[in-house]
């Protein structure tokens, strides 16, 4: 078997396609690295500036009073740019990079503009500022996901289309099978040979890419990032072996290598280019998106009955304990409802995306895209994770405010109202800070399904290739 593998690799190493592949992959990977080095520091700087600003807001408010902290909350939250952005862009421009903390609403003012009734902060999920500034031609990003998903798969077909049909044409298949080697050994030998010959230029290009990226002092890769890169490389090999298996299958079934390549090309075009977008368009037309006006209309009924509920308590003219409590409850519930309404929309939209993703999962190219996104820490799942992080932090901060208030015996413990809250100074260092973290095991969990599906595809195709080759007549 090793003999066959070795023979295949040597055969390929000397061929024109090997040289072309190496040059092509190197060019793409170098471009990818250069682009990343050019853009990533800017991205990180933008993030840092934004975070510093929002931290300043938090400290200012904490310094002012516990009440200000409870009313205005923290500053906006920003999504930490992934150091592995070069692996998968993940449609970053379509996703907002922030979760905003809305200013407290003002319900009522007197003639002088003094706020009589104002609420407390709540989270909102803004839309990304869609790329309507970009009027350039429409092209995809040169990230690893593209290089592996489109280019490497094409190369895999390029290396395997004549694996059996070519040998049959030359007559060498007969010679090989005349030896006392079982057919499955031949098949595995061919498979490994092709996979290895593709891996060599790919690994070379990846190494050059990572060398460029890691030696630059503007970008820093952590140990975890290297681990993730290892996973992505393994994914690339798995995905490539899928197309190698497909190439072997078709090559074994078809007599002429030219016909085999043509069939493979048409299959590739369908699987990689058309299926993802066409299926997604079909999927998204199942459930129409909610328009912005509809979204706003949903808000009104939520607000109206809230007002009725607390009208009585808020109406009393004296500033007594009961009114303060009514105010506090009103503010809290208003913020809660506001948040729920915002979340509802996010959930509606993400369920739409999940549905579209599930359907496009038939295409291995989309599976790979999602997997790389998951492990590179970009894309949609990552966005949801970021949103969850902010929600968790919001709860944490609210608890902190409540706990600090509870610790003060002089306070009335009525949150959200100046008169009802502790007046002690808050130590800004004690206020919890937001940290946007990524969890590798969670990423594995979200990716597990897709990973299994991709493996299944590979196994099915490999056994298909085996069956086809066993039955082949020379």
């Amino acid at each position, binding site marked *: 078997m090793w003999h066959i593998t070795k023979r295949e690799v040597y055969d390929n190493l000397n061929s*024109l*396609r090997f040289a*072309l592949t190496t040059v*092509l992959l190197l*060019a*793409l990977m170098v*471009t*990818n690295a*250069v*682009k990343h080095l*050019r853009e990533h520091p800017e991205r990180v700087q933008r993030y840092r500036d934004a975070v510093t600003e929002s931290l300043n807001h938090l400290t200012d408010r904490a310094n002012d009073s516990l009440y200000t902290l409870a009313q205005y909350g923290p500053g906006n939250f920003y999504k930490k740019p992934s150091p592995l952005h070069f692996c998968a862009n993940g*449609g970053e421009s*379509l996703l907002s990079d922030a979760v905003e903390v809305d200013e407290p609403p003002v319900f009522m003012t007197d003639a002088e503009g003094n706020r009589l009734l104002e609420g407390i902060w709540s989270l909102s999920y803004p*839309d*990304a500022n*869609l*790329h*309507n*500034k*970009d*009027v*350039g*031609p*429409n*092209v*995809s990003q*040169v990230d690893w996901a593209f290089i592996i998903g489109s*280019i490497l798969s*094409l190369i895999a077909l*390029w290396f395997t289309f*004549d694996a059996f049909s*070519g040998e049959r044409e030359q007559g060498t298949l007969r010679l090989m099978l005349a030896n006392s080697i079982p057919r499955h050994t031949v098949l595995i030998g061919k498979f490994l040979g092709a996979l290895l010959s593709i891996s060599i230029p790919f690994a070379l290009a990846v190494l050059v890419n990572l060398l460029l990226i890691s030696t630059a002092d503007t970008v820093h890769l952590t140990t975890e990032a290297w681990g993730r890169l290892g996973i992505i490389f393994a994914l690339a090999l798995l995905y490539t072996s899928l197309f190698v298996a497909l190439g072997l299958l078709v090559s074994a079934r078809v007599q002429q*290598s*030219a*016909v085999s*390549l*043509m069939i493979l*090309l*048409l299959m590739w*075009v*369908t699987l990689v280019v*058309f299926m*993802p*977008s*066409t299926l997604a*368009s079909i999927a*998204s*037309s199942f459930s*129409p*998106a*909610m*328009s*912005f*006006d509809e979204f706003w209309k949903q808000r009104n009924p939520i607000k109206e009955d809230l007002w009725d509920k607390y009208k009585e308590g808020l109406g009393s003219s004296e500033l007594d304990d009961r009114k303060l409590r009514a105010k506090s409850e009103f503010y809290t519930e208003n913020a809660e409802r506001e948040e729920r309404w915002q979340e509802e929309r996010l959930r509606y*939209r993400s369920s*739409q*995306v999940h549905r*579209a993703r599930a359907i496009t999962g038939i295409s291995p190219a989309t599976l790979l895209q999602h997997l790389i996104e998951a492990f590179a820490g970009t*894309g*949609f799942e990552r966005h949801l994770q970021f949103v969850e992080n902010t929600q968790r932090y919001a709860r944490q901060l609210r608890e902190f405010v409540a706990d600090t208030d509870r610790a003060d015996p002089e306070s009335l413990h009525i949150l959200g109202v100046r008169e009802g809250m502790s007046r002690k100074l808050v130590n800004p260092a004690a206020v919890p800070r937001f940290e946007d973290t990524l969890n590798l095991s969670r990423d594995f969990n979200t990716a597990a399904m897709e990973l299994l599906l991709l493996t299944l595809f590979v196994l099915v195709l490999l056994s298909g290739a085996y069956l086809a080759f066993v039955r082949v007549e020379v």
Partner: protein
Amino acid sequence: MLKTLIGRELLDNLMTFRFAAVLLITLLLVVANTVVLIQDYEQRLESYNDAVKMHDTQLRKAKTYSMMYLFVDRAPNPLSIFNVGLDKRLGNLMGIWHGFVPTLWDAQMHGTDNPFIAFFSSIDIVFVFEVILSLMGLIFAYDAIAGERERGTLHLVLAQPIGRGQILLAKYISAMACLLVPLVLSLLFALLLLTRSIPLSTADFLRIAGIVFTSFAYLSLFYLIGLLISVATRRTGTALMLAMFVWGFLILVYPNLIRATVNPGGNIQAGMKTAQNQIQQILNEHEQECQKFLENEIIAAETSEFSKAFGLYNDTYLDPVTLTSYIENVNFISAIPSKFEKDVPLAKRYYDFVERLTIRTIEKTWRIRKQALENIFVRQATMDRILLRLSPVGIYDAATQAWAGTDLSGLRIFFEAARQYRRVIIDYFYAKDAFASREWFVADKGAVDWSTLPQFTFERRDVGTNAKRALPDLFLLLIGNLVLFMGIVLIFIKSEV
């Protein structure tokens, strides 16, 4: 003799597996995508109609001139089914008032789309053709000469008293005739589906004809590339492999690579900063002059009381990224306290002064902004497009976009119309003397009658304009065809059998 050759080649091509496969796959892809695209278009049209209706009612709600909520909406282009271009990407909703000059960078979306869904790149018919037609051309061409050479039939053909050029011509004509079948058939299906649900005008059909002709030139170009490879190589295996590499490079790699490598000029940030400062300065001067007017006309102590009674509100805005700048003087008072009734003439004078000044100011900022936007956004995009034209895909895309009217200049017409409309509104205000009227800021003595307000109308330009923009690219494709053909003939004549 030529006829015999063509007949033979035609039969050879038609009876092959590849012809059936290509036909099937083209039909399948075009029809499936057309159905989806039509659905998408109808959805966009519906949301456009909703938006127009909503904006109309919104406008009628406004009681004073300064509260005017006037929006114009951009209808989706039915030909975006063929090449979507920028039609879906750019905003389709634009506020119109005198203190703001609208550009395509300020446009908003109706917001019907789930932006997350846009992860999955949308495709159009031209994209299907871009990928499939080029592949078809190469698949039909790679063995045209190399195959005959391998089988030894080239000897036989050349032994006949026919010129080599004629052989090539016969091959070209017959292959193109075959390749036209899937192209035309799939387009007919698409048109059948299209005309059932979307009414198309004669001009649209002419534009579609332009797209079809361009597709034809594109297809032929790729066939010739394949033929060139076939003539230049000895073996079909090598020819096929080379053809595939060229295809992958031209279709997949080059367009994406070029956009990633081209670096926008370094001093853009600086230029943007200066433009921003200049605009900010103009806006500041505007505020000062408004202040000065108040100081000159009223006793300083009374200024705050006056502005509260008349709800004076002056907001200037400048966006650092798109340089969007506007001045808003909306007025939220419902009645004027009787104590201040005597000051109404003064308020009228104030608004008359300020609003005219606003128009002048914002037009001054527009002159700076126009230049800056051109430098920042348009120049880069234009450069990308020029470099993209080194690949036939780029030329084909540009030409079909121009035909469909979904390219940058096609869409800019709409935004120009929006700017025109703003002028019309301003003229209407002048004619009604609206700035100096009581209805400008308060509706206690009768609300504004909006029924005479001029309506916004927008017509796409005629086919001639489309043709004028598409023809250079079309010629480029045709020239490419010609050069390639001549090159092939030369190589073939000089080559040994």
